[in-house]
């Protein structure tokens, strides 16, 4: 079991709000954790710090025996060396590449012989057969999400980070894709951190939750427990319960 040890403080440029959070998490089981918080609460920034896309001012992030970030030692491992999968809010598919090339991008440098069988495997697993030659703009929202997810897991990441995976979809499609996403994440068997502002996402996808408010984790626990017994008025507001 690998331990993810996070203790960071991040201040937005220009002296805005500050994020301060710390948790230790044994990452190994394919458990899904949702960061639930309102817009601007800092949950996406926490995910970006984990991925190495933002640099906190203070603290550390360790994954097993590897240090991803340590402010005191000036260590900041770049995103390409953290072995993570990241699904962006609007999927960030490369508009100039076909579905096949978007997926194969993650394997460039690994040698052509290893790449194409893995691409074929992912096209099959994510029901993308027949769409290989299409450009992202020729796909529906749900198909784009599947391509982005296939691309993110190409390198068999140890941890999958998903930033508001359903917010780019309309309500009806989101409801449909939510179930599909849940099944895909379970099938992948990779632990996942999902950022969402939608309690329906948390209820459907999460095994456990971190409730985020003003850059801090105000409650954590099994999803059902947090929904049934929010410990603060802010947590109650976020999970939609009466305090």
């Amino acid at each position, binding site marked *: 079991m690998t331990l993810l040890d996070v203790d960071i403080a991040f201040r937005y*440029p220009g002296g805005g709000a500050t994020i301060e959070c710390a948790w230790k998490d044994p990452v190994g089981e394919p458990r899904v954790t949702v960061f639930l918080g309102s817009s601007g609460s800092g949950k996406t920034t926490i995910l970006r710090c984990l*991925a*190495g*896309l933002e640099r906190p001012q203070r603290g550390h992030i360790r994954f097993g025996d590897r240090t991803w970030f340590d402010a005191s030692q000036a260590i900041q491992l*770049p*995103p*390409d060396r953290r072995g*993570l*999968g*990241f699904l*962006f809010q*609007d999927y*960030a*598919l*490369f*508009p*100039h590449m076909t579905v096949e090339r978007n997926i194969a*991008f*993650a394997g*460039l*440098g690994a040698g052509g012989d290893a790449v194409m069988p893995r691409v074929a495997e992912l096209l099959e697993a994510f029901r993308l057969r027949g769409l290989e030659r299409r450009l992202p703009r020729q796909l529906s929202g749900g198909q784009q999400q599947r391509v982005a997810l296939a*691309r*993110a897991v*190409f*390198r068999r990441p140890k941890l999958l980070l998903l930033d508001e995976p359903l917010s780019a979809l309309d309500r009806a499609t989101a409801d449909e894709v939510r179930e599909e996403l849940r099944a895909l994440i379970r099938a992948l068997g990779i632990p996942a951190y999902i950022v969402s502002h939608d309690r329906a996402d948390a209820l459907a996808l999460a095994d456990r939750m971190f409730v985020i408010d003003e850059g801090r984790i105000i409650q954590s626990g099994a999803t059902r427990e947090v929904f049934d017994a929010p410990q603060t008025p802010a947590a109650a507001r976020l999970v939609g319960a009466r305090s």
Partner: protein
Amino acid sequence: MDWVAIALTLKLAALTTLILGVVGLPLAYWLATTRRRWRPLVDAAVAVPLLLPPTVLGFYLLMATGPSSVIGRLYSRVSDGTLPFSFAGIVLASVLYNLPFAVRPFASGFAAVDRRLLEAARCLGASAPRTFMTVMVPLSWPSLLAGLVLAFAHTVGEFGVVLMVGGNIPGVTRTIALAIYDDVQALDYAGANEASALLVLFAVSVLAVTYSLQRRVLPL
């Protein structure tokens, strides 16, 4: 028609464009992506040739590269000659003078690329140079093309800075623009007209090809 001057002009423009591609792309990338506070200063330094008269830039370059200057002494150590009144001198002058014509379109193109695509590439295991080559360059291609074409075409028509730094030595620093000037001074209007018409045709053709390529690339 002074074919020697035409050949020398094309050689100068090709070399200048090549150097601007090598130097200008990383500089433009830095300008488009950095959050450093002194970025506006570098931006201004790059844009200075747009406002300065070419003779002013040429004058200072002449002073800065003369045999007694630091640059001049360094250059004479690695080569037999001097920078002023040499082909190498006018290449240096052209590169500096054309910097904004290449770097500004490059930087605009880079700035227009969605940052999340670059971040996505990094999260997919691509190093910074690979992200640049596989995502940044293909998505900003029309602007890169515009910068390179502008730099090339502008060098072909250069006059003041070349005259100041290179003089007007046939076969060494005498470009087509200087040859036209000489023709007019010698009252050879037919010769000046021939060369001028060629430059007009060149400018129109270059712009037509550039716009046509951009129209084909832009609907990505």
